[in-house]
């Protein structure tokens, strides 16, 4: 039986996390020595049968107590700060990441690349390029975890969560679901396959060539009837979607909201909850009529319209 002692380190995050881990390990070793060595010493020296000097000794109790309270506080603050900084780095993605959608459902993982490639329980990626996964769940809470990358993010139904990382070496790395999700939770695992950029490009082109995410989304936009109201020449007065993504949207109650992924999702599933200022609440709700994958495709399409200008309103 082989037994690894330490997991492979295959991402930029892993390097940071392992540094912190070893620092904590060293600190723990020191603390254990500071506690157990005196303890063993006292247990031996002052065991009942010994005739060590046990006369009462006036110790500066208060100074001792304050010292061993204050020093741990400072050490804690230091570890907190280091951990928080690393955490901030690993939660906030850099600009220009490779965007991939990931849908978790009982008990499998489905990935969609922007170019249209789809995978189940496998994720092909190029090395040395930061990746952001947009995660959605069809049913219960799951959690996407790649031990070799040291990253993990819960996948919560009803919202999008994101997770970014940058693989640093080619190879195959297991991923798991780490939030108990029902009967076959243990089987909900897969492999990330990190390739050289050339191999990755190759894989993309020779994979099942289909429409890109945005193209699939555009098809849905028509078949679901969205273009009936939101196209420029529609008789219904509906907010234009060109240039919408990323902008501030004024709502009917006077507040403003940023048109991000969650906003688009909520507006499609339950439009009545946030009415754009100046428009009537006539859009039908699509909740229950769209899978998470379809939603992600629609949103990809809408994102592709972000750079366009809205048509002139008559």
């Amino acid at each position, binding site marked *: 039986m082989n037994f690894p002692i330490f997991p492979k380190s295959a991402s930029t995050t892993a390097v940071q996390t392992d540094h912190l881990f070893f620092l904590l390990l060293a600190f723990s070793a020191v603390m254990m020595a500071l506690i157990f060595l005196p303890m063993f010493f006292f247990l031996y020296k002052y065991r009942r049968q010994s005739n060590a000097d046990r006369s009462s000794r006036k110790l500066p109790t208060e100074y001792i107590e304050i010292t061993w309270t204050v020093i741990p506080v400072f050490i804690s603050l230091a570890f907190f700060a280091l951990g928080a900084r690393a955490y901030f780095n690993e939660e906030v993605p850099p600009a220009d990441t490779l965007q991939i959608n990931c849908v978790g459902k009982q008990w499998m993982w489905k990935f969609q690349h922007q170019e249209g490639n789809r995978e189940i329980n496998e994720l092909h990626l190029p090395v040395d390029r930061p990746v952001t996964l947009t995660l959605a769940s069809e049913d219960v809470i799951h959690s996407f975890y790649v031990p070799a990358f040291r990253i993990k993010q819960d996948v919560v139904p009803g919202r999008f969560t994101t997770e970014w990382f940058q693989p640093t070496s080619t190879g195959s790395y297991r991923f798991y679901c780490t939030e108990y999700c029902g009967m076959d939770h243990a089987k909900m695992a897969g492999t990330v396959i990190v390739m050289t950029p050339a191999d990755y490009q190759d894989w993309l082109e020779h994979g099942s060539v289909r429409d890109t995410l945005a193209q699939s989304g555009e098809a849905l936009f028509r078949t679901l009837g969205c273009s009936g109201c939101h196209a420029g020449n529609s008789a219904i007065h509906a907010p234009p979607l060109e240039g919408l993504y990323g902008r501030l949207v004024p709502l009917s*109650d006077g507040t403003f909201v940023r048109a991000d992924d969650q906003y688009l999702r909520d507006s499609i599933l*339950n439009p*009545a*909850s946030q009415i754009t200022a100046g428009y009537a609440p006539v859009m039908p*709700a699509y*909740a229950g009529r769209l899978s998470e994958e379809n939603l992600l495709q629609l949103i990809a399409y809408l994102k592709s319209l972000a750079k366009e200008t809205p048509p002139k309103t008559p």
Partner: protein
Amino acid sequence: MAERTTTIAKQFEDLPQQREAVTLGMWTFLATEVLFFGGLFLVYSVYRHFYFNAFAAASKHTDVVYGTVNSVILITSSLTMALGVRAAKLIQYRNTIRFLLLTVCLGLAFLAVKGFEYHKDITDRLVPGLDFNPDLPLHGQIFFWLYWTMTGLHALHVIIGLGVISTMIGLLSRRNGRPVHAHSIENAGLYWHFVDIVWIYLYPLLYLVGRHS
């Protein structure tokens, strides 16, 4: 206002210890009740923050007349309860019983009004999951399960409170000349006032959301 020798439970040394223990016990119990309802109020706050418009729209469908009448009834019952406690401290047992009976009647009136109100809410299709009124937004259902849960739990506590007060009335009526501790009545009063205070928070949160507009 000297208290004559009365029965002290055997774990206590003397009457002041018993009185303090029982009173502190009731306050501690009320603290647990605050945390219990508090969890529910927290859930309410979170969802109201997410879905204020839906809450305002849904709240308009509560019957503010029933709600206001009940508020008046319950506050008055707190008054009668307080008067009953005062009478107990003055060792005026007949007055104590009268005021406690009045409190029970008001409490029952509260429950009766609530019964009529619930009946109306059901015929107005305001029960989530039971042919909920389609004119209301989806998240209005969240408002209404909060409404049913919060008022239902409150009504349960009203019933418990009425039970406690009735027990006090029973003890007072059948005491056979033995004095009854005023602190027992006072602690029952504490519970009743708590039930009243919960309602005072419930009323604006459920009946008055967005009503000024």
